[in-house]
């Protein structure tokens, strides 16, 4: 007995050393209310032995009181955190879950499927490497499946799993599965999603969730968890085009001026020549500084501090790039916009637009069309309302440095903030630049400070300019006349 205990005893050092090396996969789950999504997640968490006993005790108690799963444990109750939605029996917001296996750590963004909460799915999916889209084997590909898939393609998620759930209710019939897969593939082809995997499973019974099931001998692919553990994700980031939005300028003393930021994309080496935008001044990377010492190279998504060989004035919101590989610099672009606000789009409003670490004022110049997320049909529109998606033209008061979202998520994404309520009104994905002659005329009303006219003495100019810079950093465009 004692021997046996010793043999099975966890070798904790080895465990921790291995754990330290694991990478991180973030995935989104989307499905309709009754597709058994929460049950599936509960099963992944449960079967990967992450549930602690006392959570289980609480669960048993809750299941008896209001469970919907008959004699099975209702995994959904474990996940649906908030009081109000428990009473409704549906998940109404994005909830994040964490579990790990021997090979990987996982973050699940659990998002709802019903119509009025498209915005939550967009929220949950923005950081995901992979999306699991659930369908009920009895219902097949339905409107919501199409909508979820469209949103996933819009967000540029590279990997999609179509999880055909409730196979137990169709007698694990291969023909049913094959039909759903064929329907789905026909529909998804034009969306350009790189990697699609279809898995027949039963979340309730556990078939093909963690272990491959004997009840689907005709299915030759991996179980869901096997797939999640092995799908390669390290190629999903952009390592080609160096983009370094300056986030914070660090000046602890006269001798040190560091530009803090996250490597949005590409790779930077000590000694590389870099160009600062918009000034177009160039210098070389003197040091890549971290708390743990200097390093030779940095890549996404590392947060580092760069020092340059020459004294160049660079502020938050400006960008360091390689001089031979520039992003678009411009004030006008086309983008896909998802409206996230209860308040409908007001075309007269000048929103705040935040892209990378840059904030500016922005105006929606026009709507090319809006998209019916269920049919993907395009139709004309003069405004967007909550959960609507459209192709728009946006112009900004300040120049932005951007890439198409499809090429670079980090520099192609932005949010629009309502200047009155401060809500995040919309989120956008840049498609391409547009000639900004039109935009220019619209933004002539920049606030101008004529310092001599205001009677400000020249010795105060520097202080005024510094204050203005601070205000600009918060998104207000100012012009100074000396």
């Amino acid at each position, binding site marked *: 007995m004692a021997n046996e205990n010793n043999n099975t005893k*966890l070798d*904790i*050092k080895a*465990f*921790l050393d291995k754990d*330290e090396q*694991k*990478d*991180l996969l973030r995935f989104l789950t989307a499905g309709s209310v009754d597709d058994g999504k929460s049950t599936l997640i509960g099963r992944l968490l449960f079967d990967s032995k992450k549930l*602690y*006993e*006392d*959570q289980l005790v*609480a669960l048993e108690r*809750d299941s008896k009181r209001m469970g919907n799963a008959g004699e099975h444990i209702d995994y959904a109750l474990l*996940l649906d*955190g*908030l*009081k*109000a939605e428990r009473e409704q029996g549906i998940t109404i917001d*994005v*909830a*994040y*879950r*964490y579990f790990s296996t021997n090979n990987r*750590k996982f973050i699940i963004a659990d998002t709802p499927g019903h119509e009025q909460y498209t915005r939550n799915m*967009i*929220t949950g999916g923005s*950081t995901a490497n992979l999306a699991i889209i659930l369908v009920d084997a009895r219902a097949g590909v339905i409107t919501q499946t199409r909508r979820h898939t469209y949103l996933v393609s819009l967000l540029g998620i590279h990997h999609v799993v179509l999880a055909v759930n409730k196979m137990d209710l169709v007698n694990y019939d291969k023909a049913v599965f094959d039909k759903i897969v064929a329907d789905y593939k026909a529909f998804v082809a034009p969306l350009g999603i790189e990697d699609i995997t279809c898995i027949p499973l039963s979340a309730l019974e556990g078939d093909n969730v963690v272990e491959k099931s004997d009840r689907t001998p005709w299915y030759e692919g991996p179980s869901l968890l096997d797939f999640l553990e092995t799908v390669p994700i*390290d190629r999903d*980031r952009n390592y080609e085009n160096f983009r370094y939005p300056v*986030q*914070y300028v*660090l*000046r*602890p003393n006269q001798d040190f001026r*560091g530009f*803090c930021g*996250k490597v949005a994309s590409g*790779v930077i080496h000590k000694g590389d020549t870099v160009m600062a935008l918009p000034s177009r001044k160039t210098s070389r990377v003197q040091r890549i*500084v*971290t*708390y743990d010492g200097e390093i030779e190279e940095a890549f*996404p*998504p*590392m*947060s580092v501090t760069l020092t340059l060989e020459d004294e160049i004035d660079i502020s*938050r919101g400006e960008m360091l790039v390689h001089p031979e590989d520039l992003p678009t610099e411009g004030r006008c672009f086309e983008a896909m916009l998802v409206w996230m606000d209860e308040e409908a789009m007001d075309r007269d409003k000048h929103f705040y637009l*935040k*892209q990378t*670490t840059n904030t500016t004022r922005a105006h929606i110049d026009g709507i090319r069309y809006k998209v019916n997320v269920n049919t993907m049909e395009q139709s004309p529109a003069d405004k967007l309302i909550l959960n609507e998606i459209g192709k728009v033209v946006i112009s900004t008061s300040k120049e932005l440095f951007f890439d198409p979202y499809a090429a670079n998520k*980090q520099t192609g*994404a932005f*949010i629009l*903030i309502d200047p009155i309520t*401060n*809500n*995040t009104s919309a*989120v956008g994905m840049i498609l391409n630049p547009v000639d900004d002659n039109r935009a220019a005329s619209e933004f002539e009303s920049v606030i101008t400070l004529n310092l001599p006219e205001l009677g400000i003495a020249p010795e105060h100019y520097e202080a005024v300019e510094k204050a203005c810079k601070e205000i600009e*950093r918060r998104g207000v465009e100012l012009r100074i006349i000396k």
Partner: protein
Amino acid sequence: MSDYKLSHLQELEAESIYIIREVAAEFENPVMLYSIGKDSSVMVRLAEKAFAPGKVPFPLMHIDSKWKFKEMIQFRDEYAKKYGWNLIVESNMEAFRAGVGPFTHGSKVHTDLMKTQALLNALNKYKFDAAFGGARRDEEKSRAKERIFSFRDKFQQWDPKNQRPELWDIYNTRVHKGESIRVFPLSNWTELDIWQYIRLENIPIVPLYFAKERPIVEIDGNLIMADDDRLPEKYRDQIRMRKVRFRTLGCWPLTGAVESDADTIEKIVEEMMTTTKSERTTRVIDFDQDSSMEQKKREGYF
């Protein structure tokens, strides 16, 4: 191509540093709330990392309920001094002078006055527009849905149904005067990540986390340490020395110990991996009712 790989901890570290810098850049008057627990210790180290070789550009604030373990207070003062932090300590002195405490007023009244109210008073007093907290989403169900940048109205209240959408790493930091944002840079860390990071980075933590013989009395099934002479008379002759450690730290009468031999981080992790209780069960305040944490959060508690 695959040379450019970060482990999950490196990725989490980078994400947290990015969040912390974003707050320093966009808010006028941020503060980092410091509970002296292990998560706070990690958060504080991440802040030091974010601004190295410079100093962290915001203060650290501890809300002292006046019932914290003595070892916590000692650790707090030594750490702040050693690492050059600007430390603010605030308490609800009015309630303290009125004699409010967990033994006399119960855990709910005590927590409300000495923690929630004390925190709200302090945030108002200094007019902080952003406050970092060390909460993790895996700790508790209602936290799983909270944003990393979590908006609070003028009354410091959280409305779970009216959260701002949060996409990519573009955080909406705009608030009106009087409103504020609570920021949770450790949102995506798990308990195991925290321990692993403490181990790898040699981050100092309060010794109460490690098993040791301590004077313990059993109250309503919880192992409570007799930390000072405010332990009511009726319990005093029940004090026994037992080898225990704490999985979470808070007010000593409200924080249950667990019997344990784990006196190293490796042993703590081993205990955690094989244990059957999740960490918040040692916090007495959670037992009121199922949605109690959500209730407290709506009212302004972290």
